[in-house]
């Protein structure tokens, strides 16, 4: 009946199903991180970076802003693991301080986009009609702007601060959340169990939360994770350009901006903050990609051509 040999041979698959049904959500999530090598590496990296950001500053003996003119441009050593900068400030302390800012901006921006985009998509697509059309056109217009350009323009308009960075970075990803939710709502609206719920008199809001929300949680989780990654990068780019967080606030982008002038004298000033940045982005990308591949069997397909 079926020409795909893989489909044809698998026949019925009754053996796999019963085991996972009994697992709780927590068990399934933990199991996923334990089984998927990428997800595990990403998680370990993320935990290390989070620890560095929120516990790290208490463990280092130097204040990030404490100058020491007699120890300028010291190369990495036992007393200063990452060396010191032009005022003799300890780079490790500064990188750790930058980590917490980076996480605060990234998590704030991604969650803000989620909190605006998801309800927007849910409500407008559930209402449908003109409201939905107008919202869609506006979302199209936002997408026409390159994301980083939009962030630059917005942060210039609102001035450099953590809160304005949240909005500037979140703005361009709002349409993506709205679209994920919209697609799912339109899909689920037609399903029998949603119609049945309507029939037994469940309210619209209840249906949205009870039936539609659980189905969009996985793709939303992927989007949020990948948004953390892009928010970290965008924040660093803006600060690198001198448009995001400006001194005395310490950010990785700012540290890299500073490092530019001293590349020859003190390359470590560029290497360490950049590595911290790359590892943080990597941790989010690894987790996001792993979840996405886990959900989308298309990318899981194996086998090339002989």
């Amino acid at each position, binding site marked *: 009946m079926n*020409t795909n040999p893989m489909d044809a041979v698998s026949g019925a698959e009754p053996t796999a199903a019963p085991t996972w049904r009994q697992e709780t959500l927590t068990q399934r999530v933990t199991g996923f991180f334990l089984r998927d090598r990428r997800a595990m590496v990403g998680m370990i990296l993320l935990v290390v970076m989070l620890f560095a950001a929120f516990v790290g500053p208490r463990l280092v003996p130097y204040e990030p802003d404490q100058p020491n003119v007699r120890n300028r441009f010291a190369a990495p050593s036992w007393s200063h693991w990452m060396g010191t900068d032009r005022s003799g400030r300890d780079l490790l302390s500064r990188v750790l301080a930058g980590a917490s800012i980076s996480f605060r901006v990234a998590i704030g921006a991604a969650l803000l986009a989620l909190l605006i985009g998801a309800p927007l998509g849910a409500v407008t697509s559930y209402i449908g009609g003109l409201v939905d059309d107008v919202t869609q056109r506006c979302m*199209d*217009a936002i997408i*026409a*702007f*390159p994301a*980083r*350009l939009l962030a*630059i*323009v917005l942060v*210039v*308009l609102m001035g450099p601060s953590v809160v304005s960075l949240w909005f500037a970075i979140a703005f361009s990803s709002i349409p993506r959340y709205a679209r994920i939710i919209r697609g799912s709502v339109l899909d689920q609206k037609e399903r029998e169990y949603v119609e049945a719920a309507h029939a037994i008199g469940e309210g619209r809001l209840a249906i949205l939360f009870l039936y539609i929300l659980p189905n969009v949680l996985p793709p939303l989780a992927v989007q949020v994770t990948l948004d953390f*990654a892009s928010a970290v*990068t965008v924040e*660093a*780019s803006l600060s*690198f*350009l*001198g*448009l995001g967080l400006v001194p005395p606030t310490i950010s990785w982008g700012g540290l*890299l901006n500073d*490092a*530019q002038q001293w*590349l*020859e004298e003190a*390359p470590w000033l*560029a*290497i360490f903050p*950049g590595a911290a*940045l*790359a*590892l943080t*982005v*990597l941790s989010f*990308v*690894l987790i996001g990609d792993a979840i996405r591949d886990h959900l989308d069997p*298309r*990318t899981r*397909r*194996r*086998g*090339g*051509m*002989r």
Partner: protein
Amino acid sequence: MIRYTLLRALQMIPTVLLVTVAVFVLIIIIPGDPVLSMLGYYADDVTAVPHEIYDRMFRELRLDRPIPIQYLYWLGDALQGDFGKSVVFRVPVIDVVVSRVPATLYLGTASLLIAIAVAVPFGVWAAVKNDTWVDHLASGFVLFGVAVPGFWFGMIVILVFAIYLGWLPSIGYVAPQEDFLRFLKHLIMPATVLGLDVAANILRFQRTDFLDQLHQDYVRTARAKGLPGQLVIWKHVLKNSLIATVTVVGLNTARLLGGSTVIETLFSYPGLSRLLIEAIYARDFPVIQAVVLWMVVLVVVVNFFVDLIYAYLNPRIRYATA
């Protein structure tokens, strides 16, 4: 095909208009007095300017008219290439912008060529050799490209090739008509850094889509006809997979032709994006407006061409509208 082209061109108009409105509104909501910033005063101190000068400027900028009228005037001027005078350079904005276009075009084209030359063959190879070392290398490259920010990678490249090895100049730009060899030397590093970044982006889609295409039924039909594997890949699969590739390449083209702010800044490369950042520092709003408008219109126009190529590659769309 002609009908489709016209139809698609007409669809561009509302988007472009919406974009112009957005860019115009940008200036209105900017904090600060436009007259003062036009006159080169950074402080919002109205008393610092003589009344008659202020009033003349106010009328010259048509700030006494209602906002929709202001927009129409502005749009009319913009269509004729008149974006006003640059606050900093004291010359027409259009001249400033045009002087920066070539540098960005060279960098954009060079990086795009590098990106395509790396990503397309690599993506095909990785998909065909799925789950082998080639594929893992490709996945590693994609992860590297996505995780490592271009400006940090650029710094490392400067560190190695300019500072330690001394092979290439670390920053700056020389026009090709001045000295072509030095032009190339200045172009290599930024173009490679930007090109590899974009290559990772393209590869990410190319590999997945190609793998998907390889498992389509038509591939098996083509092989059942006795066509050699290489012919099937490069003739049958590539044409279908190009549909997705063109889309992602198109998105990146628009980005590249607008210039990369961080790369141009890092390499002190005098392109449009660098101009944007300079204008922001100097609060040169007419220039900001013109550059932003240019970049967004570029996205819309490039998308138009992407759609045309898309239609050429995908007969279903070509005929659906004909």
